[in-house]
């Protein structure tokens, strides 16, 4: 087939010239052959994924709840700032649904995000209510240890667990020293829990180095190369 407008030959699989879109086959397209270069693509309509729509609704809902709460609080009893306690709870709920339930993120990443989200929510509530540092003193260090234990159990019980989760376990080992840092800057009043979290992280790290196979040491090299 020839396209006279473009001065080129056109593969007989085409009804129209791919360059100028003028018909090259005539009305009946009798010389049309099947395409030898490409398959016929399935017709696909570009639609926003339903998960993205749900996510937008969730965000809208969370922002609305927080906004209305602040408004009611402002117009009503201003002596008790209950909305400041509600906001972190809504944010944590949003994070849990959006990341932990809806996303396809790795299980290790979900555990770490849950740990960080829960810790941030509790710290916020703690600070907003102006009481002693119960969150950084007790809850957060134990949460760190629980998350580390959970990933250690997954590493030991799952096939290929060390390969898949060692990066997350290393991250948790680093996070394990955070309670000690919080104590050092005066954001925690309880030393023994901070030391316990750091020691637990160190023990886990030492255990990983001793017990885990060569693969783990190799994994360390990969993860930290610069």
């Amino acid at each position, binding site marked *: 087939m020839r396209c006279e407008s473009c001065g080129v030959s056109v593969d007989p699989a085409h*009804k129209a010239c791919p360059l100028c879109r003028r018909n090259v086959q005539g009305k009946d397209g009798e010389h049309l052959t099947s395409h030898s*270069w490409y*398959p016929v693509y399935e017709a696909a309509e*570009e639609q926003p994924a339903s998960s993205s729509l749900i996510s937008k609704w969730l965000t809208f809902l969370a922002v609305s709840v927080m906004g209305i709460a602040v408004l009611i609080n402002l117009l009503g009893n201003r002596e008790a700032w209950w909305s400041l306690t509600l906001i972190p709870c809504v944010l944590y709920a949003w994070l849990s649904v959006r990341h932990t339930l809806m996303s396809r993120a790795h299980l290790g990443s979900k555990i770490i995000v849950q740990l960080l989200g829960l810790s941030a929510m509790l710290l916020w509530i703690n600070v907003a209510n102006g009481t002693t540092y119960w969150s950084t003193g007790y809850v957060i260090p134990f949460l760190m240890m629980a998350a580390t234990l959970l990933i250690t159990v997954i590493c030991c019980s799952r096939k290929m667990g060390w390969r898949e989760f060692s990066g997350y376990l290393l991250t948790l080992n680093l996070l394990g020293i955070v309670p000690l840092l919080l104590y050092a800057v005066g954001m925690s009043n309880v030393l023994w829990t901070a030391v316990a979290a750091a020691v637990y992280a160190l023990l886990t790290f030492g255990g990983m180095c001793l017990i885990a196979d060569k693969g783990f040491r190799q994994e360390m090299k990969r993860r930290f190369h610069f």
Partner: protein
Amino acid sequence: MEEWYKLDHAGKLFPAVAGKENSSTYRLSMMLTSQVKPSVLQDALDSVMKRFPLLNVELRNGLFWKFLREKETRLIVEPEAAYPCSPVNFSHESGSLVRVLYYGNKISVEIFHALTDGGGALEFLKTLVFQYLSLLGEDVEDKEGLILPPASFARYAEAQDSFQAHYTSTTPEARMPDALQIPGTRFSPYGHNVIHGMVHASRLNAVAKQKGVTLTAYLTAIMIMAVYETTLPFNNENRPIVISMPVNLRKIFPSSSLRNFFAVINIGVQLKEGMTFEQVLEIVHAQMKEKTTKSYLSQTMAGSMKYEKNLFSRFTPLKLKDLAIRFGFDHYGEDAKTLTLTNLGRVDIPASMASHIKAMETTMYPTAKSPINCAVSSINDQLTITFARNIVESDVIMRFFRQLANLSELDIMIVSNDWGMGA
């Protein structure tokens, strides 16, 4: 023990900038003379992968850099179903950074650019097709030594990051001004429309020689004229038309690396009214001559590697580094070019294999700011010029082929995947 590889210098860029509108995945295909048998192709792939372990890898995150880790699962051949150069899946469960596809008589490989460049991919495709033909019982022999020997993988030489080996600290070139960019309407649903133009290679080469220039310079000049004529109504700022061109550094610096080893040079012309094709050709030829010298390419390498060598950037966490790379790519790389033209050159294959190959094509993925890209390769004296675009408008491509047909007086056969054309 499972192997892992650091990303090479060029490979560090692609994972940070890849996305739906920049798949960073290119394609090389060979059209055979007979229908592809998937089971034989799978057997060929299984044996060839031992020779190319660098391609059966997954991309993982480190604290400072991403890295490649050998995959436990084998690579499986797939029937071609999606548009060319569609994004690869980074998920380690099912995703692969390499796809081996078949359709009718055609075998294609699609490779994420972080693994290797066109040079490495070509070695892989040649070896795969050679092995496929051999398993099919065809009488193919590599007397000329054009296929990688089936000996074990030469880990040191072939996995080497040749950028590091040939790095010299020199003063890099100053930042280029913003280039003209081709506007257009994105396909919906998103995809890549591909148009191939096939022409007699040695005759076209002779036409270029007659003008006293290389084939790449000749095609680049036609491209610049085509872009100029198309964009004339809205290029009010008279921005330069810049054609970005990857240069295979293996031909200049000694290297047998199968990983990325290329530099990008920009050929730019600020057209004035009344400029002729011959004048543009002269400028392009002179620039290409100047920018493909060893010293210029060393300077280009030094410019792109200076951030990687910097101690501060090396110890910056990966997520921050990705943000910085994306910013640099958008503002220094993409803004400085109009489109990319890559010429893989003449592909030499053993004579016994040649009779089984009808044609070859290379497809270079388009990006958000470079919505039309062009790739050229030739085999068996047939040259294929491939345009891939993510916009509806095809004026630049139409003008290019019309001018090429007009100037060379050669017959050009046009084939397309017709993506977004409703037919």
